[in-house]
């Protein structure tokens, strides 16, 4: 795969992407603030939601066993998958055993993570994404770039072309017409599908319930029409009970799109019951580890509380500049910069935690108050311990600890550096720096160190001042200052 910095350069050159990102993140961000402001006790609700999420991680194993027991009691078959390959294999087995040939899917991060569609097609099982954005992504043969808005990176004209080319409908760029076309096309697929695949926004431990939220209603169709329903969910996606679910629902929609609640919230507690006319006949839940247990044992366990609202993406100035694809995997933005190295290992992904100014905007908007900057710092530390550090950076920081803990050495070094820097900058500004530092002068001049340091000025002042003179002048009364 391409290198992170190359993907960044590509994204930064894409003016269309930049415009789309600006509009979308600004709109979602401002709606989020307005919507949370209108929620009474929103700070307390966020604190309570955080408590519920963090609390269940303390005994995740016990909670999983209880959840499993309740699922089974509700007539659900429960499966466990150590990694993505295993999850996909289980799903293919379930489909084959049940004689399913045509699958419809509603948006699911977990199955993006396991690259499920590829394995299903390989096993001769047709699979169609049904979320409008994901459907277009699938037609275009690309990947989603935002957790909530998968095709934030595409213009309506490009979407029109994709639909025209791939499903042979007359070209249009009218969003309403495009959506209507998708409704008709996908409705046919829903009616003929025998397998529905979803993720889970939440699993309610004490009732054994799978919770799905969607605005379009596709998750409802996927779980209502086909006779078999398979849920693929990460082992962390639990909430203790319905009261906690209430908290999550209150903050999820508001944080994601600024809606008080998403249009459809489905609570599915087992397959259809006696006397019911619809709903699946057979329901399976695949509990996916795929690196989550490793995350739990390390310093970024907190990220397992993420509810995938996408608010941190919209708040993140880095995401706003580069979009989702530059992150190179399923989860973009600040959450991706933690989840991806967490799930896949730091090797090959250490650029992600580095790509943050640690501004903390993500932490501020996170509905469950995840301390994302802290986790980025943990991953950077881990990368230093585990991975190879570029030589130039190693040289730059080598001895920093030794030198900067010895004042004399430090000052001498800094002064010498200053003298050298001023040679490069007769007017006090450096236009081009060598090596890694050249990154700075790519778009900025660098101010050269001052001829006299603060400490020099301070010492000179002390020397010039007669001993015993009180340094403090009384506060002057207000008097006119010079006019600027």
């Amino acid at each position, binding site marked *: 795969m391409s290198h992170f910095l190359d993907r960044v350069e590509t994204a930064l050159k894409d003016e269309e992407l930049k415009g789309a990102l600006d509009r979308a993140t600004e*709109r979602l961000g401002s709606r989020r603030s307005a919507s949370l402001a209108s929620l009474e006790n929103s700070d307390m609700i966020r*604190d*309570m939601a*955080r*408590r519920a999420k963090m609390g269940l*991680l303390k*005994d*995740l*194993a016990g909670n999983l*066993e209880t959840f499993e027991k309740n699922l089974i*009691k509700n*007539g659900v*078959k*429960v*499966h*466990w*998958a*150590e990694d993505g390959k295993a999850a996909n294999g*289980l799903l293919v087995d*379930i489909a084959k055993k049940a004689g399913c040939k045509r699958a419809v899917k509603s948006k699911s991060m977990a199955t993006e993570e396991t690259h499920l569609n590829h394995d299903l097609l390989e096993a001769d099982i047709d699979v169609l994404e049904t*979320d*409008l954005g994901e459907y*277009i992504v699938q037609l275009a043969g690309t990947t989603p770039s935002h957790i909530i*808005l998968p*095709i934030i990176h595409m*213009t*309506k004209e490009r979407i029109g072309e994709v639909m025209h080319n791939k499903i042979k409908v007359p070209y249009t760029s009218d*969003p309403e017409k495009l*959506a209507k076309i998708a*409704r008709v096309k996908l409705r046919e697929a829903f*009616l003929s599908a025998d397998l529905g695949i979803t993720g889970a926004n939440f699993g309610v431990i004490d*009732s054994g319930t799978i919770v799905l939220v969607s605005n*379009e*209603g*596709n998750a*409802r*169709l996927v779980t*209502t*029409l086909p006779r078999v329903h398979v849920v693929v969910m990460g082992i962390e996606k639990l909430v203790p009970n319905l*009261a906690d679910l*209430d*908290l999550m629902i209150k903050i999820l929609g508001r944080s994601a799109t600024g809606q*008080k*609640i998403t*249009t*459809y919230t*489905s*609570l599915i*507690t087992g397959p259809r019951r006696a*006397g019911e*006319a619809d*709903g699946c006949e057979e329901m399976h839940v695949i*509990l996916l*580890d795929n690196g989550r*247990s*490793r995350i*739990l*044992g390390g310093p970024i*366990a*907190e990220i397992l509380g993420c509810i995938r609202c996408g608010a941190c993406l919209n708040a993140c100035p880095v995401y706003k500049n580069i979009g989702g694809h530059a992150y190179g995997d399923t989860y973009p933005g600040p959450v991706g910069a933690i989840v991806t190295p967490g799930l896949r290992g730091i090797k090959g992904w250490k650029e992600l935690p580095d790509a943050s100014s640690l501004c903390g905007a993500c932490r501020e908007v996170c509905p469950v108050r995840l301390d994302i900057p802290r986790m980025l710092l943990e991953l950077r530390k881990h990368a230093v311990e585990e991975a190879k550090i570029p030589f130039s950076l190693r040289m730059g920081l080598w001895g920093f600890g030794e030198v900067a803990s010895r004042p004399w050495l430090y000052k001498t070094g800094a002064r010498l550096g200053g003298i050298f820097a001023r040679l490069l900058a007769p007017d006090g500004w450096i236009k081009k720096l060598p090596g890694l530092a050249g990154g700075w002068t790519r778009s900025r001049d660098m101010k050269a160190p001052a001829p006299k340091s603060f400490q020099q000025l301070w010492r000179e002042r002390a020397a010039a001042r007669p001993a015993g003179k009180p340094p403090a002048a009384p506060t002057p009364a207000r008097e006119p200052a010079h006019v600027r």
Partner: protein
Amino acid sequence: MSGEASSSTSRDARLTILARVRQAQIRAHIPETKAGLPERLAYPPTTPAARRARLLEEFKILGVEAYVEESEEAVRLRVRSLVTGKTILSWDADRLPYGIGEAVRGEKIYYGHDSKEDQGQAEIGLTGCQNALAETGTLAMTSGQGRPRSASLMPITHVVVIREADILQGMGEFFDGFRKSPELPYLVFITGPSRTADIELSLTLGVHGPGYLIVVIGP
């Protein structure tokens, strides 16, 4: 249908994953959370009139067409005027309130036991509703015998009839009603028409579910 772990690989995986999680949670650094929070959210008492007003306000924001009727007969008339001449996908007559099932007799009606293809022909879904949740403008629907999920989902228009007495303040109160029940029915919370903003953030209604949601509130 008996639930169980399926294949042997999955059974092995179960043991492996649980063992890993157990190991991990011993040394996990789970941050402390804020102390002094209440055990549960409290719901300040509200009046039926206030709940109805709030519900209507939320409906307005969501683009839900709402009618408040003063008598049972008025509810039947309203519903009849909304569905006359259309193909209907309905809950069973005995599951609808106010004798609406009788009132619409004579129209072209499909029910949950009809084929999905037939149900797919319907232009209007006609249902009752367990509760409405005022603070979000939400309809809390359960499904069961004679109350198919498809009726609130497949047609482009969904007509819902609710009783004013069934308006609750919010989801928390609604869930409280299930605290003692042994198992949850299938539940869906519906808040406004089906919508998407996937294409350049432009709002489009009715992309998969109903694009028109009409609520009739009866006495």
